[in-house]
């Protein structure tokens, strides 16, 4: 008997799940619904805390419920791409600007008209949120790397990379430091993101720009003479032991916090740990390696509206007039530590010297390319940097082979 009732229980559960699953499979929206008065927003846990208050305010002002669904940030992009076509996706997501090309390529994101408000945001944030001349997202934060310097070891900010290495090597020779310069690299993939400013300084960006000032995937500029110069630079620094692909991000952070190196090329996320370790630090512009300024990639985060949202007016209202306000941008900055994208909130946040210093470096930065072709770049770029740093072949030959490989992948897709 016991067995029997258990089996009945099981079948109850099974059938319920089955029917709900079947109902879930059914394509929705065959009968077009008008706005439901509910906005569904996918956010990560940190952002959810802030958005909860904004949502309550929105409900009070406009009578529209905002349903917050907390998701892992890393899952949002792919889940959004697969769920929007089913009509079951959210109205709004939080995301990173470099997802944009992929979202547009898959037709899941709707353009956003910021009107005159566009001027209230940092230029780099608006450029990052634009793709082929259209603006798509409401930015809320900007983030970039800079040079973290141990003031006790190196009292002067180096202007060039050679100065930095010379100062570092003098300290190593004197026995007060172990590493002249630290940057976290992966043994199999190096770290093109962190090394990019040094590459940009040679005048070799990844993609050229179109007439709108956004990235043009048909203009791959890695292979310019500056790229060859950068490849030779990597080989030299690799041979000298300045760059070491066995020093991962974690090891670099640990060693810098132990006071074993005067310089650490990293982002704001590693600053709290350095402060906690008692390092007397300063945040400097990234030293140049070539004729151009060493411009880091700027990462922008923001909110996007679904192309299939039935609530476009409400979603637009929520983004532009609620999430785009100084109070909300400041609240998002306080919970995430990333500098606000809204100028007025950014100016207020600059009372924190770290934010001001990173912001100053980022002001010269370029947005990380958001074109889908970037997917074809990362893997080859990293593998080749590893090979060059470890001097497994002629740097220029390796670099040009990488450019040819990337170009052929872009042409094929």
């Amino acid at each position: 008997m016991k067995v029997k009732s258990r089996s009945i229980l099981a079948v109850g559960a099974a059938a319920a799940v089955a029917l709900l699953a079947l109902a879930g499979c059914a394509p929705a929206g065959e009968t077009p619904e008008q706005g439901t008065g509910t906005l569904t927003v996918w956010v990560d846990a940190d952002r959810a805390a802030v958005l909860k208050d904004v949502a309550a305010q929105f409900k009070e002002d406009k009578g529209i419920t905002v349903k917050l669904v907390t998701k892992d940030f890393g899952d949002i992009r792919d889940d959004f791409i697969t769920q929007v076509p089913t009509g079951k996706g959210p109205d709004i997501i939080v995301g990173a600007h470099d997802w944009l090309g992929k979202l547009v390529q898959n037709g899941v994101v709707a353009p956003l008209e910021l009107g005159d408000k566009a001027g209230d945001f940092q230029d780099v944030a608006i450029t990052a949120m634009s793709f082929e001349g259209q603006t798509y997202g409401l930015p809320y934060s900007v983030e970039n790397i800079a040079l973290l310097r141990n003031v006790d070891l190196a009292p002067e900010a180096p202007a060039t990379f050679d100065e930095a290495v010379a100062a570092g090597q003098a300290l190593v020779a004197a026995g007060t430091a172990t590493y002249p310069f630290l940057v976290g690299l992966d043994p199999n993939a190096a770290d093109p993101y962190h090394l990019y400013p040094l590459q940009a300084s040679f005048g070799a960006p990844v993609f050229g720009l179109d007439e709108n000032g956004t990235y043009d995937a048909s203009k791959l500029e890695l292979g310019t003479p500056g790229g060859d110069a950068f490849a030779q630079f990597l080989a030299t620094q690799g041979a000298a032991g300045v760059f070491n692909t066995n020093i991962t991000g974690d090891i670099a952070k640990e060693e810098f916090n132990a006071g074993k190196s005067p310089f650490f090329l990293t982002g704001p996320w590693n600053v709290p740990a350095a402060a906690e370790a008692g390092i007397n630090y300063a945040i400097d512009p990234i030293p140049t390696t070539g004729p151009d300024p060493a411009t880091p990639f700027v990462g922008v985060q923001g909110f996007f509206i679904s192309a299939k949202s039935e609530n476009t007016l409400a979603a637009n209202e929520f983004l532009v007039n609620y999430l785009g306000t100084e109070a909300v941008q400041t609240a998002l900055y306080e919970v995430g530590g990333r500098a606000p994208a809204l100028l007025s909130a950014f100016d207020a946040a600059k009372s924190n010297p770290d934010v001001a210093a990173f912001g100053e470096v980022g002001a010269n930065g370029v947005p990380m390319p958001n074109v889908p072709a970037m997917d074809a770049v990362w893997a080859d770029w990293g593998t080749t940097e590893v090979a060059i740093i470890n001097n497994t072949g002629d740097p220029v030959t390796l670099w040009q082979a990488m450019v040819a490989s990337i170009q052929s992948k872009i042409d094929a897709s």
Partner: protein
Amino acid sequence: MTSVLTRPTRERSSLTGILVKIVLLGIVDALAVFALFTLFMQQSWLVFGIALAVTLALNFIYLKPGLLPAKYLAPGIVFLAIFQIFVVLYSGYIAFTNYGDGHNSTKEDAVTAIIARSQERVPDSPAYGLTVLDQLGQVSFLVTDPDGEVFLGGQDRPLDEVTNAGTDGTGKADSLPGYTTLTFQDLISRQSEIASISVPLTDDPNDGALRTPDGSTAYLYTSTFVYDEQADTFTDTESGEVYTDGGNGSFVSADGTEIQPGWKIDVGFANFARAFGEEDIRGPLLGVVAWTFAFAILSVALTFALGLFLALVFNDWRMKGRRFYRVAIILPYAFPGFLSGLVWLGLFNQDFGFINQVLLFGADIPWLTHEWLAKASVLIVNLWLGFPYMFLICTGALQSIPDELTEAAKVDGARPWSVFRLIKFPLLLVSVAPLLIASFAYNFNNFNIIYMLTGGGPRNPEAGVDAGATDLLITLVYKVAFGSGTGRDYGLASAFAILIFIIVAVVSVIGFRQTKALEELN
């Protein structure tokens, strides 16, 4: 127990049983009716039919006396159908489509998306004040331009100047006699309609049209692409280039330029042809398949050898502290594999890892970055992760072999090695062989360890393909599907998945045949 005693018990409990059954079946049916109703409203007839059939079948099975096997099997079969068969068939179907980046949804969605993204705001055009009006269900835009002049227009009705509009304090027109002004709540309840309205500025469509993102401001847009529904083509308004449906799930121009996004179409065997045909994939494919077999076979052989050896050692009653050792041996199995992967990653670091620094006194061995050493490292870690499992099953199998056999052999004068080779090992293999085949299938698709340790690397940067020295088929498929190279291509990845399924199935069938022969031998 006699039948006299059992009978009343049975009747009492079957009353409770019937009650439980009715309640549970009632809940199921209630949910079913709700689901069916929703499906009916959505007019998804196929799913409606399946759901109805499943509900009727379940009611029939549980209400009819008898049918005991069906009563036991029904829940499992329902779950199997949803979570296994449906998933397998669906991946099979995906393998015959071009589903992936740029081909994500239907053609209808693609057309809508292209139209939406081709709306470009006219450079330096002003923002217009807007009030949305309603007259007998027809929506009109009451527009105030920056000079304070007021116009009225609607979908396909160009702007026309009006003079009798009422204005608010800022000079923005907010009402017109004969029309109802829509409040924000009204706008929200009709937002899809209002967001889709575009009001031509003049009779000339090239002057652009006004659209509103928020219901209170309108902006002037021109379209860079115009869709012709009759001809099913897009025309670039600047260059005059015509883009037609090229049959590959996208609009292409005469010179082959594509408009993104495209849409999902069936492509037949094209993905399988690509898996075998394109040099970019075929080149690494052979090497990867060879390494996948080597990895799976060596993993099973090494873990089984070590596990069996330890099982034999700890199965000997002369061994002291067996219980303690056995627990210690299970530990690697008890840790989450992901965690172990990360720990080993640190241990193997060339300059800072424990293995080079401490065990090998500061040696400089590139464990994870040299082609062959990386393969060896992956096998070592997999051995560490896998031997406790083999130890467990071998211990169990050894303990089930009767001691009499060993004793009889000893009495007959067999030496320990002969006892093991001729008696214990064949008997052991009968019960363990199916598990070895399962272990082979598992290691064939052992994604975690490769992903955590080497990510498939090291890779030869001059090879031009994304396959590294330790890439298994499954990690290669992952790279193809989730785009570390050229964007996600679910169609191609599903085709690979089917090929992997066929390989594993063939190996398993052969393996099980051999096992059967083994059983007959005994």
